[in-house]
């Protein structure tokens, strides 16, 4: 069996386990390639029925406009129910400080919005596109990742997860984060996108952009990120390896205009996905672990 078929089968099985074990699941969608692949897998898992749960976007307000347009078009095409919950609303309601500075990242604040939405809709399972190859803390996480009532991951006391028996039993208020593509690498995702001819937001492909050079990384100038007189500014051909917020996702210099080009580029790349593109994980060795302890995906 081809390894992409094996990975696809594992993901389909996990989706069906979520549907079979939970009353109110939700699929978390960011507009990026991983959650777009999730949608594609969910369509397969439940065909000929439509996806039997809603899709939710936790909107930081710092999105790439291309990703938002892509989101709306995709949701329309698959006839899914979309829920959008905005971090700005959480900031206002909870009177939280809105991060300032040159690259004001609301990334960590997403956890509050997510937890609020989980309570509001009584979601018992959130399906996400997290992959174990992304980051060291994610590499440790179960496929059904149990979270207590405050959303916290307990890395030292994870449930045994044996064979493909996924235990989704929870008490009221607790929830499970389910990761169907845990075992996919960045390259697997791209090879699957190629094989299945999955459409993606245009910013994954090479385009012209004016960027600030920050820590040797290229951060796009946008309504959220403004240059000052000391900045080195370049206008060049770039693409994005991940689609996060405009304020904390770096572009990479690239001329890859097709999926084939991107796969060739990745196979030759010496830098990991998050290393190339995230400016928020550079803070410490345990940045992701710390966010997960606070309810982060």
């Amino acid at each position, binding site marked *: 069996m081809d390894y992409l078929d094996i990975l696809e*089968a594992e993901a389909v099985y996990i989706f069906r386990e979520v549907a079979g074990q939970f009353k109110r699941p939700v699929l978390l969608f960011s507009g990026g390639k991983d959650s777009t692949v999730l949608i594609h897998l969910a369509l397969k898992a439940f065909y000929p029925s439509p996806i039997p749960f809603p899709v939710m976007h936790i909107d930081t307000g710092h999105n790439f406009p291309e990703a938002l347009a892509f989101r709306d078009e995709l949701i329309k095409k698959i006839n899914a129910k979309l829920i959008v919950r905005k971090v700005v609303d959480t900031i206002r309601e909870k009177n939280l400080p809105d991060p300032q500075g040159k690259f004001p990242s609301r990334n960590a604040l997403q956890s509050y919005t997510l937890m609020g939405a989980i309570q509001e809709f009584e979601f018992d399972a959130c399906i996400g596109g997290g992959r174990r190859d992304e980051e060291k803390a994610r590499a440790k996480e179960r496929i059904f990742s149990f979270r207590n009532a405050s959303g916290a991951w307990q890395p030292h006391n994870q449930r045994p997860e044996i064979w493909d028996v996924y235990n989704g039993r929870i008490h009221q208020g607790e929830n499970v984060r389910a990761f169907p593509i845990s075992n996919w690498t960045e390259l697997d995702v791209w090879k699957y996108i190629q094989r299945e001819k999955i459409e993606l937001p245009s910013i994954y492909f090479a385009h012209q952009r004016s960027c600030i050079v920050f820590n040797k990384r290229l951060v796009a100038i946008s309504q959220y990120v403004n240059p000052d007189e000391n900045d080195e500014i370049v206008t060049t051909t770039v693409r994005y390896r991940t689609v996060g917020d405009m304020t904390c996702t770096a572009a990479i210099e690239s001329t890859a205009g097709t999926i084939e080009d991107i796969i060739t580029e990745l196979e030759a790349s010496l830098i990991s996905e998050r290393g190339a593109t995230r400016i928020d994980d550079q803070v410490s060795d345990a940045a992701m672990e710390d966010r997960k302890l606070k309810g982060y995906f």
Partner: protein
Amino acid sequence: MDLLRFTTAGSVDDGKSTLIGRLLYDTGNIKTDILETLSAEGGINLAYVTDGLRAERLQKITIDVAYKYFSTPNRKFIITDAPGHFEYTRNLVTGASNVDVMIILIDAQNGITAQTRRHSMVASFLRVGKVIVAINKMDLSNFSQQVYDNIKNAYLQIAAKLNISNISFIPVSALNGDNVTSASANTPWYDGPTILELLESYVGPTHAYAHLRLSVQCTIDGAETGYAGKVLSGTLSTGDKVMVHPSRKEGLVSKIIHNYDTVTEVHAPCNVCIYLDNNITLQRGDTLSHAHDTPLYGNGFEAALCWMDAKEKLDSAKTYLLRINTAEARCTIPSIAHKIDIDTLENYTENAPLEANQFATAQIRTLDEIAWDHFSSVPENARGVIIDPDTNNTVAAFIVR
């Protein structure tokens, strides 16, 4: 290109993480920025690749399973780096439950330890298809064939007691790379494969043509109701007469959907959506077989058991939940036939309840009827977990004897 899953086991400091780091490094699968974070205190610490939690880096031990990925032109690999420490054996069981191959590292200077026996017990319990015994740190034993042979012979005695049959022995230095991805000039007396060669060539057993078992996961709504499930074993075709367990009702398969396609025949392992032509209703937890080739069925069986709950011991008076694939039944484990001593690998009996990281043989009684198979006929339907309905924790893994 296909996929192989393997794990590494061994005592603390036997070099598990270093071996994984070496495999990733030699096959060009560590990116430059990751490599930079590994170069603490001068020199590259390959073990840092896998220890992902802060406490693990501070205590310099692996607590829970980490998953790592690499590929060669021939295969994609999923590595589960599992803990070696005694109290985290249960996490090793999690890590090793899905693997095709277990690599057991033995420090050439220390020889076989209690952990070697314990990890071999896990391999035996889970019936891992292939065991590679990597006799590591050969550089510190002058690459002595005598040292290698002594450990190999001692291990073969353990393997015989545990019924582990498919074993290969390899002398290695994970730190320096001897016999990991390329044959070592330091072991001219060894003419077998390297670890990577073995990993690239091993092919596990197939269940595609064995007894049909299908486990139902959920319903698929539509004009007619379909049932999503996994073909665990065997071949399913449209027109097949199937029996549903535990209801014992029979029906004919009218349609099989795989992905977006309607197909006439599927082989395990395969996710399908099936339709039956008479009005029998299926539900999550049902197991389907051919009507003439059914699983065993009833209210109990003898099982090998590994207890995994670190806080609660086995309570012989308690009603637990048992799960085999998606099938669930309430159950009790009234008495333990015997436990297994990890030092002697002999059976023994004692009155103390079964606790975390202990292995035993026990009679499991179910309060609801359930279908199962023996491991020798349908391994995919001969294993499961025990769940504590109060804490919801998965407290034990079992394999039907």
